[in-house]
């Protein structure tokens, strides 16, 4: 059973053991519009928390995606290359970006939980 937390940059990370699956939230994909391309990191790449890890592109914009926690990339979503629309259709599940082997579990604990993120988003609008 994985625990999901959120960042202020609208990334989510679902932790299962020491593997964190990262994606962008439904709010983010809605703001972005139709996703046309996702630039994913290489497997093996290492990121510290807050470092740019990926880029998600719509027709008119490109948004940086930051590693919500520090870790090394163990897997990237193979489906996004042919079907970037997955990010719009199932941002929270099938539209995941990459999986990290995390280094510092406390970083995960510091993130917002679902309720806190929902409040955060409400305050934005």
């Amino acid at each position, binding site marked *: 059973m994985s625990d999901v937390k959120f960042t202020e940059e609208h990334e989510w990370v679902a932790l299962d053991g020491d593997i964190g699956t990262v994606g962008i939230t439904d709010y983010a994909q809605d703001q972005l519009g139709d996703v046309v*391309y996702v630039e994913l990191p290489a497997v093996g790449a290492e990121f510290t928390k807050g470092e740019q890890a990926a880029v998600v592109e719509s027709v*008119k*914009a490109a948004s940086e995606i930051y590693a919500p926690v520090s870790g090394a990339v163990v897997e990237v979503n193979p489906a996004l290359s042919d079907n970037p629309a997955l990010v719009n259709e199932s941002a929270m599940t099938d539209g995941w970006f990459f999986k990290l082997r995390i280094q510092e579990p406390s970083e995960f604990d510091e993130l917002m939980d679902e309720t806190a993120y929902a409040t955060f988003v409400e305050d934005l609008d």
Partner: protein
Amino acid sequence: MRYLPLTETDRAAMLNAIGVSSIDDLFDDVPESARLERLIDLPLHAGEMEVERDLAAMASRNTAAGSVPSFLGAGAYRHHIPATVDHLIQRSEFLTSYTPYQPEVSQGTLQYLFEFQTQVATITGMDVANASMYDGATSCAEAVLMACRVTKRHGAILSGGLHPHYSDVTRTMTRFGGFDVQVQPPDLNGDETLESSIAGTTACVVVQYPSCFGHISDLRPLAAACHQAGALLIVVVTEIVALGALTAPGDLGADIVVGEGQSLGNALNFGGPYLGLFAARNEHVRQMPGRLCGETTDVEGRRGYVLTLSTREQHIRREKATSNICTNSGLCALAFCIHLSLLGGEGFARLAKLNHGNAVLLAEQLSDIPAVEIVNDTFFNEFTVRLPQPAAAVVRALAAKKILAGVPVSRLFPGVASVDNLLLVATTECTVQGSRDALVAGLRGELQ
């Protein structure tokens, strides 16, 4: 003034609507010290007649290349442009239209860009081409920057057969980016071996095809050596008509092909505006600079075209863009597209054959002159001639006799004494026997 439709009555009415009494009120934000009370010290307005008279007088103080025997090349070539081309590019809808950011009212521009991209990709043997850049030299520089992005390396090796303006522009544009750009010494005979210079930090090797001196190398071994080392091969074509007679660089292993498209559709224009060509492989398309036109459909299923993959570009990606380029060479690309549409594949090959044939004839005639040596084994429509004395003085003397004999290599490589006696001579389909005879006679007269 004929271009300004507003009358004094109009201006008064508009000032009234705005609610100010004078135009000066609308310039209130300008600091007082910077407000010009008087006209700038320049001539006053002039009618068409006067402007035409003055500028035509200036034009008459130039020797038009077509009015005399002319053998100039070195990156710009005098070809015959069919009358159709200039008429079509002067249509209002082509000449005075803007960049096609609103595609529904720009399908004319977008369609010809799509055709242009296809033509460039086809003749270079590559997967994809962009919608043009400023010129061949800046395309070359952009290709090096792209290769560095793709390979994540910072080294570039520039062949000694690359046009010096191209290597200078490449060095300039990479100057502050922490790149290591090595320019090889001038490679007169095509003897250089670049393979041994390729290192683990080499992002790309840049060669010109045919070279600046005219010779044509088989690029396959170099391509293999580059790929073996994880580097990209960039091939530069300064005379695009050569691709009508030579194997496409893409088929020799090029990873990026750049070049100058001026030869098709575009006049010499004393050096600009010209037409930068840029072609690459599908796998690298997202690292390409410049505009890209793509096919799509509208909401009724109709085929149409749009600028696409725009997230590479400055207006979206800003400091992370693949380039800062905005404006391209649209109208020059249209001229190229029209000219190549008129030629077709068979016509393009015939044009190239005619160019080469004329060059071979000229080389034969020139080699009959004692003490004149043709340096090249291979060439397309341009080759290097070794004279027994400095070429620059010979060229000036012949210019005074109304013969434009070619480009002294010393003009391209100033300060390199070993090239002083070398002359670059180009011919095209425009060169007639009388011109060849004039050049030969002129040279005989000038050479001791």
